């Protein structure tokens, strides 16, 4: 079981309030991703749940029981750190067995659980090595192994993939998702990378300056961002945000159109512009189009092999059905 409830939780460092009163419920078995720009309080929130920081006010309940004052070790949570935080002087086997040894399990049971974890994570051949002799991805797996042997109520991941290179990151992303499918344990995952959030989460929590901007499934956030911040944060490349005349025509202060919801054409369309930078990715091409009278370019997704180049004239037609409208306060107009 791993149902975690935050009830009006606040956190202040001295005079600075980093988390204003915040309510959140994480259901058992959910994969929840906290996402937001750096400094938005997502790691602090995770550390509050872990018990590594004391809350200033409010209550944290784990499976209905008040855990606000419970020390980290007694909360039944396991954490994977950004730096992996492996113990450098212990072998992989001892690293993974450490929480079991601290819990006073007998040797046979320790060995059995370490062996299981090593099988799951493909670490069997590395059990007698030191962390210093492993690659980044392997160290990451050891850190995960150390977390799963405890059979915790929930896993906490603090930006676990940010130290890996791009290819490994994609691989580890899949492995963590698979692990979640297999274990069905609650996982809370902190990242600043919206791609990780979109691909892994059952539920995304978008944070800004300690506030929850929106909670929802990846597609809910994609289809119906509640405000300008979420609209700009979720989706890659970013949504085009256009204000002024075009927005007024549609009764909004700002309108947002995703690059994939604009149809480019060489001869006819709503907006006329000039192609700036063209990013050819093979499967897709992203054009940065300069529209007359607008300082920021509009990003447009086109097919992979569209014959348009820098300086060409281009016409854009947004999909009116999929234009997001926002009012003067940046909130979505339904």
């Amino acid at each position, binding site marked *: 079981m791993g149902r975690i409830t935050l009830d009006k939780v606040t956190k202040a460092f001295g005079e600075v309030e980093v988390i204003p009163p915040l309510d959140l419920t994480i259901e058992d078995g959910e994969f929840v991703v906290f996402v937001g720009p750096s400094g938005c309080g997502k790691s602090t929130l995770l550390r509050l749940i*872990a018990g*590594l920081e004391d809350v200033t006010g409010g209550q944290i309940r784990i499976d209905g029981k008040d855990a606000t004052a419970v*020390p*980290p*070790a007694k909360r039944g*949570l*396991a*954490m994977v*750190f*950004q*730096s992996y*935080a*492996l*113990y*450098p*002087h212990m072998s992989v086997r001892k690293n993974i067995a*450490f*929480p079991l040894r*601290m*819990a006073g399990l007998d040797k046979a049971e320790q060995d059995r659980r370490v062996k299981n974890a090593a099988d799951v994570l493909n670490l069997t051949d590395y059990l007698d090595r*030191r962390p*210093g002799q492993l690659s980044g991805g392997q160290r990451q797996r050891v850190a995960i192994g*150390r977390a799963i042997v*405890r059979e915790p109520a929930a896993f906490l991941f603090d930006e676990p993939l940010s130290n890996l290179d791009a290819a490994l990151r994609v691989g580890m992303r899949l492995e963590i998702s698979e692990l979640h499918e297999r274990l069905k344990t609650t996982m809370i995952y902190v990242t600043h990378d919206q791609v990780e959030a979109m691909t892994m989460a059952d539920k995304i929590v978008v944070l800004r300056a300690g506030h929850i901007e929106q909670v929802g499934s990846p597609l809910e956030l994609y289809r119906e961002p509640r405000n300008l911040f979420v609209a700009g944060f979720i989706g890659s490349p970013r949504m085009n945000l256009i204000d002024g005349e075009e927005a007024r025509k549609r009764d909004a202060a700002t309108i947002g159109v995703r690059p994939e919801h604009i149809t480019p054409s060489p001869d006819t369309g709503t907006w006329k512009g000039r192609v700036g930078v063209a990013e050819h990715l093979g499967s897709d091409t992203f054009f940065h189009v300069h529209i007359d009278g607008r300082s920021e370019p509009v990003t447009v997704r086109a097919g992979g092999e569209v014959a348009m180049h820098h300086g060409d004239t281009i016409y854009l037609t947004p999909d009116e059905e999929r234009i997001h409208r926002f009012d003067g306060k940046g909130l979505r107009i339904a």
Partner: protein
Amino acid sequence: MATQHSRSAARLMMAPAVILLLGWMLVPLLMTLYFSFKQYLPMRGDSFERGLEWVGFENYVRFIGSSSFWPSVQATLLIVGGVLVITVILGILLAILLDQPIWGQGIVRILVIAPFFVMPTVSALVWKNMMMDPVNGMLSYVWRFFGATPVSWLSDASVESIILIVSWQWLPFATLILLTAIQSLDSEQLEAAEMDGAPVLSRFFYIVLPHLGRAITIVILIQTIFLLSIFAEIFVTTGGSFGTRTLTYLIFQRVVDSQNIGLGSAGGVYAIILANIVAIFLMRIVGKNLDR
């Protein structure tokens, strides 16, 4: 250093320093070796001009056969070992304390380091006259305050007193090195251990202490080198009596008090051998600890 030319130029440029260093070390070593095979008693009229008598290994046999040789080796090891144990253990505890965020941290740290800047002679005199004096010393007041008879430290507990004085001098060094090591410990490791259910003491023994291993070996290595040759502290306080005659002090007495340069030189060679045995042991430990 890529080309033949630049390599020979580099050798040429380094030569003066290398020659100076070699001379600095080799000349005294060779002279010690030379004297140790000679009979050289200046008070009896021996001198270079008249030529020194070759006596073979007689000085070596006499030095080691003297009744004060083994006690002096014992005293040396006792003092070095005692100081090492005290400075390392207290150094770790102090380093952990100083690592805590406290008000006035900068000043406290400077105060902790201060004893290291006091000259050995001065600190030994201060300890002897202000702290350990059985009549006027601070410690005697403390003893009397509790109704006990003051201890005459330097005669009744002489070796312990020397260990205390030298430890006081070297504790700052150990603390400083260990403090920097503690500060380099990744705090996420401690947090991970906390999440893994390790209580404070387990965190210390499983995480902090292994992390300090390297720093501890460096402290032991450097201190041993210097502690084997402590002299001023003994000279100023007990003058080598009451079982505080170390190997270094014995050599000093042979050369200066007994005016027997040959015998003293033989002792010097023994000291070199002892220091090297210790060094080999230490290098093996350090090498094992540094190879990580």
